[in-house]
């Protein structure tokens, strides 16, 4: 603590000193770059959405599009709709979810509640990471080799769902694991202190606490899985008729319809492709919103 009384200079240095010009310039430059990066990210997104909407929206805006299939129409005739493809996409996604979600939640529960630090848990975490990096075409190949070649079943929508299960499990495991970790330990300990068995604690207390996030994660995963094209290319055939049977016969789906209608060069083929693109994006958006809606309805009211 200086006690010198020197009245020629101010007692303390000025609070805010000027920053050198070079530093200021670098700072401004960096800020500009960073803002620029964000705009670069926006540009393709906006461009893509505008393209899809501009080319496809008009075809989607009539009731026929949503309620009819392309049955009985050739690829040179306007009319009809993509009902058969919408049904197919939803079916495949939901069958996949029915199989994948219970398995994924159980795996996440294992990782968080039972298996901390054990060798199996390490192996499982590692494997889930690997599974999340498996390309969709490899998953489709595997299901083809297993389901069609070895077990002899025909190509069907169910085979597609199996391939989608492989793609959906890691996503749901990851999100559920994160959410279960966030549930505070005090809740669990309070339950144990009251004598509730472990499994009941998990099922009735831990999972419901995390439920809203889990549901959001599931709906996001379903939305992602419905847009996968590689499995439908390999594992099912295309038909322009409505087919409700996932085990037999061909079933249309939006990505498969787009791939197949791309083979037509005329205005009608283009209309169908882009209309289907708009439909797919709409359905994915609806699922995302539905997920947040349901999660908000089921979330436990806090405060």
């Amino acid at each position: 603590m200086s006690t010198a009384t020197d009245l020629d200079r101010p007692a303390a240095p000025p609070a805010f000193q000027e920053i050198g010009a070079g530093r200021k310039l670098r700072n401004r430059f960096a800020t500009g770059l960073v803002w620029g990066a964000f705009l670069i990210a926006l540009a393709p997104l906006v461009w893509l959405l505008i393209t899809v909407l501009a080319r496809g929206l008009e075809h989607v805006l009539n009731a026929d599009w949503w309620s009819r299939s392309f049955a009985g129409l050739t690829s040179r005739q306007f009319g009809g709709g993509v009902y058969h493809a919408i049904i197919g996409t939803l079916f495949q996604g939901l069958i996949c979810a029915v199989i994948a979600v219970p398995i994924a939640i159980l795996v996440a529960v294992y990782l968080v509640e039972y298996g901390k630090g054990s060798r199996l848990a390490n192996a499982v975490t590692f494997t889930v990471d690997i599974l999340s990096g498996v390309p969709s075409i490899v998953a489709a190949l595997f299901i083809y080799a297993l389901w069609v070649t070895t077990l002899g079943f025909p190509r069907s929508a169910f085979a597609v769902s199996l391939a989608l299960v492989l793609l959906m499990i890691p996503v749901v495991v990851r999100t559920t694991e994160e959410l279960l970790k966030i549930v505070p330990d005090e809740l669990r300990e309070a339950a144990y202190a009251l004598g509730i068995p472990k499994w009941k604690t998990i099922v009735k207390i831990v999972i419901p606490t995390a439920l809203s996030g889990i549901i959001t994660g599931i709906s996001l995963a379903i939305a992602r899985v419905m847009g996968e094209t590689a499995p439908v290319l390999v594992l099912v055939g295309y038909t322009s008729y409505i087919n409700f049977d996932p085990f037999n016969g061909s079933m249309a789906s939006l990505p498969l319809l787009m791939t197949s209608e791309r083979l037509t060069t005329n205005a009608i083929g283009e209309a169908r492709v882009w209309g289907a693109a708009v439909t797919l994006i709409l359905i994915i958006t609806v699922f995302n919103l539905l997920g947040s809606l349901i999660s908000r309805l089921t979330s436990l009211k806090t405060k």
Partner: protein
Amino acid sequence: MKTKRTASVLGIVAAGALVLSACGSDNNTAPASDNSGAPAPTATAPVECGGKEALQAEGSSAQKGAMEAFSAAYDAKCSGQKLSYTSSGSGAGIKQFNGGIVDIGGSDSALSKDKGEVDAAAQRCKGNPAWNLPLVFGPVAMPYKLEGVTDLTLTAEVAAKIFSGAVTKWNDPAIAGINSGATLPDKPITVIYRGGESGTTDNFQKYLKAGSKGAWTKDAGKVFNGGVGQGAEGSAGVADAVAAGDGAIGYVEWSYAQDKNLTSAKIDSGSGAVELTAESAAKAIAAAKIKGEGNDLVLDLDALYASNTAGAYPLVLATYEIVCSKGYDADTAKAVKAFLTVAATDGQATLADAGYVPLPNEFQAKLLTAIGAIA
């Protein structure tokens, strides 16, 4: 309280599912199509509707438009019966048929003995031979995009040189020699070929081999062997690519070139330049001979490709429907017969619209005999 919440959520989902599953239909009224008066075969035959409700067919994309026309006619004639066609290429069509996965295979080339396809098909048909029935005839155009050139003539020889990389520029003397009067620019030629296995490629290479007097030294086959150029996905991809690049030339079914408003090269097979029209193609088809035995109606296209009939456009392909002569179960056999009969009669009427050439009368008669013999 929690049950009320869960129940309400489940209720919403169930209601949504019910509404969704109830509100769709396959009922489409096709817009009235005007048949442009192209000659269609005149014979009719009785059709016995019934049997397997959902037939599966797969194969050549060249006949996709035709199969759709047939399928629509089938739907109209036998309500409730349908046929689904996946156009994944001739190679896939044969493989899926031999594998028992589809009921009818669509292929631009007949089953090949050398590749074991004939035997595999016989095995699929429980020991009975499979028949190749040509129901669709379509010309193959050579569209090109070249600024300032609207009239281009090619011979099979020059085409072979272009598609094998021997000629790489548009103003090459080989091309200029047969196009006196056109000013050809000094641009590189971009060859667009069909990627993957395609019956169109097979027929095109067969044409080049048969008609080019030795200028095409590669094999024929479903995979493009020219060794030059870039591949495109499906016929639509070829047409799109040719339309997009100045200096590009490719080979594609006529309907696709028409859809994209592409100019196609005229073919001079020795008797003058012939433009591709319905008449010139029909003239070539009428001269085609059958080399298969009995009801197996395999065509001898090599002779056609090497011919030089005046006014005939020789680059035509035929798509076969590959079916079992016997060996289907009763339901499938009935449905297949019904479908093929409709295809050979009512279905031919709308083919001209879609860029195909309807069956000549003699062919139709032979086809109906063969179809009738399917058991």
